[in-house]
């Protein structure tokens, strides 16, 4: 069990306004290093809500969350920000790049924040990742000049910059056409196999989920199959 990187124990969440609605109950599962996990379920079953709890951005929940065998429950905002920076990489449905910066700078940003490497090293690492994803030729363009598929690949490069323990994705292919979806899936698969990278991807694309190592199926705020 030493290679468990993420563990959810009895996680529950309810919205209290205007009436109490239980959106998540008794969520218990763990992810080991190198696993490529997908979470599937119908719209509104709470899979995105769960992802944001696991990502430490949402702190309003019951139960316990351990990342790297460390409890996230009693940490303050700055400590959680540091964990997100160092241990978690994000890919959202929309690319969420910062339009004012170049592609390269977007990828570098979390690395510069971490301050583990010098600026030159961060730049080098960012270029390596862009090259890996086949978009190094666009490195000096402004982020808003790229196509949707390219932007999503930049977002993946950004998620990879700090060698995170786990990459989390919220419908990363939800906004892309079939061809780009396939490219993005191939990239995920490749980094999973090649770098033994753990991935947790929320999706409603059954085809996408079918190709992952493990599927967690959710319905009405519960895990029904894993």
């Amino acid at each position: 069990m030493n290679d468990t990187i993420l563990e959810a124990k009895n996680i529950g969440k309810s919205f209290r306004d205007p009436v109490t609605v239980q959106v998540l109950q008794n969520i218990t599962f763990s992810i080991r290093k190198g696993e490529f996990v997908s979470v599937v379920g119908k719209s509104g079953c709470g899979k995105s809500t769960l992802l944001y709890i696991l990502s430490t951005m949402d702190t309003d929940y019951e139960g316990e969350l351990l990342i790297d065998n460390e409890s996230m429950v009693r940490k303050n905002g700055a400590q959680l920000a540091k964990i997100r920076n160092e241990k978690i990489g994000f890919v959202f449905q929309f690319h969420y790049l910062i339009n004012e910066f170049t592609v390269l700078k977007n990828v570098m940003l979390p690395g510069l924040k971490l301050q583990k490497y010098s600026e030159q090293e961060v730049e080098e690492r960012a270029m390596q990742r862009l090259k890996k994803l086949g978009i190094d030729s666009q490195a000096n363009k402004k982020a808003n000049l790229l196509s949707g598929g390219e932007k999503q690949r930049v977002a993946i490069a950004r998620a990879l910059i700090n060698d995170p323990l786990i990459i989390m994705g919220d419908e990363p292919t939800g906004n892309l056409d079939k061809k780009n979806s396939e490219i993005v899936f191939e990239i995920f698969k490749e980094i999973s196999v090649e770098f033994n990278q753990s991935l947790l991807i929320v999706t409603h694309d059954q085809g996408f989920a079918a190709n992952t190592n493990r599927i967690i199926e959710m319905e009405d705020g519960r895990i029904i199959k894993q």
Partner: protein
Amino acid sequence: MNYKLIAGIARALLLARWRQTLVAAIGVTFSITMFIAMLGFMTGLNKLLDGLILNRLPHVRLFNDVEPNKNQPINTAKEYKHFHNFIQSVKSAQSRSEIHNSATIIQAIKADNRVLGFVPKIKTQVFYNDGSIDFSGLIDGIDVAGESKWYHFNDYITAGRATDLNNVSNSIILGKAIAQKLLADIGDVVQVTSSKGDRMSLKVVGFFQSGILDIDKVQSYTSIATAQKLLGKTNSYITDIQINLKDITQAPAVAKEYVALFDTDAEDIQTANSQFETGSSVRTLISYVVGITLLIVAGFGIYNILNMMIYEKMDTIAILKATGFSGKDVNLVFITIALSIGLFGGLAGLFFGYLLSVGVDNIPFNMSGLPAVKTYPVNYNPVYYFIAIAFSLFTTYLAGLFPARRASKVDPVIIIRGK
């Protein structure tokens, strides 16, 4: 904390909305420009107006006043020591207005290292003779070199040369208004009568204009030697010693000390002219209030623009937070934006404020009463520039405080899920 990274993000956000940023910065620039120009002009004018009076006043003046003796004989009588006495209608005795032992006093003043400089003076009342009519006036016997050095005597000479008082014997510099009354020109001879009744002819070598008509109507100047001659006194006779100190604030203390030491009367500048200080400080206060009001208005502009920027850049804030920037980092980004608007707007304001001051400084300003002043007076004291930049940073910081706090509290989940 990685300030370089924070500054880089702030810069990118600023440049992304450079038009709005420019408008905000221009607001600050405008208010700082006006602040500098107004304070410079206001205090320049203050200095000029105060200088009209204060520049020509000594910090401490020693003289012998005509007043009733405070030590009446009854007070020295031992048998009535424990009694109260009332004496009505006490009169001043005939006493000399001369300063006793003036040579020794001058030696002592010279040795006092608080003293910057001093000049002796003879003040006397005269009658100017204009045909069959006499009218009264004052003649001061002065040490021309000292008077010019310490009390700007040269600045008020409108015609002729001050040094001619020493070069030409029995010479006089007439007040402008007196000269007009006597129809006297340079080179003419005027008749004056001393209070003792002695008559003397004096050659006019120049005109003097203080800018205050009441003075110009009565006051004339001559050398100390000529004044002594006019009064029939020896060359140790002087009535006043004017002293300038290194530190003007010590004047009351020094005056008090000299009264005890030299047994003369002494008057310090603060006691004699307290009303000038009041006028100056009120005018300066008004300039500060207007300048700060302008800055506060500019501050509201910055507040608005930062608020708008936060609504527009919600995505950016959310992504920064999602990738590991804390609320504190985001807060710092927006504070940096506000402060850099304040800094660059303020620096531009200092520059334009200086230019505007130079402009005002070159506007012709001819006042008949002020011969030495040709343009509007402006004060370039660097203290005002320092205050201006400090104020601009302070107000922009305040303007950025609340928007930055709001930005730091943005919940990335709501923004990212909201799409």
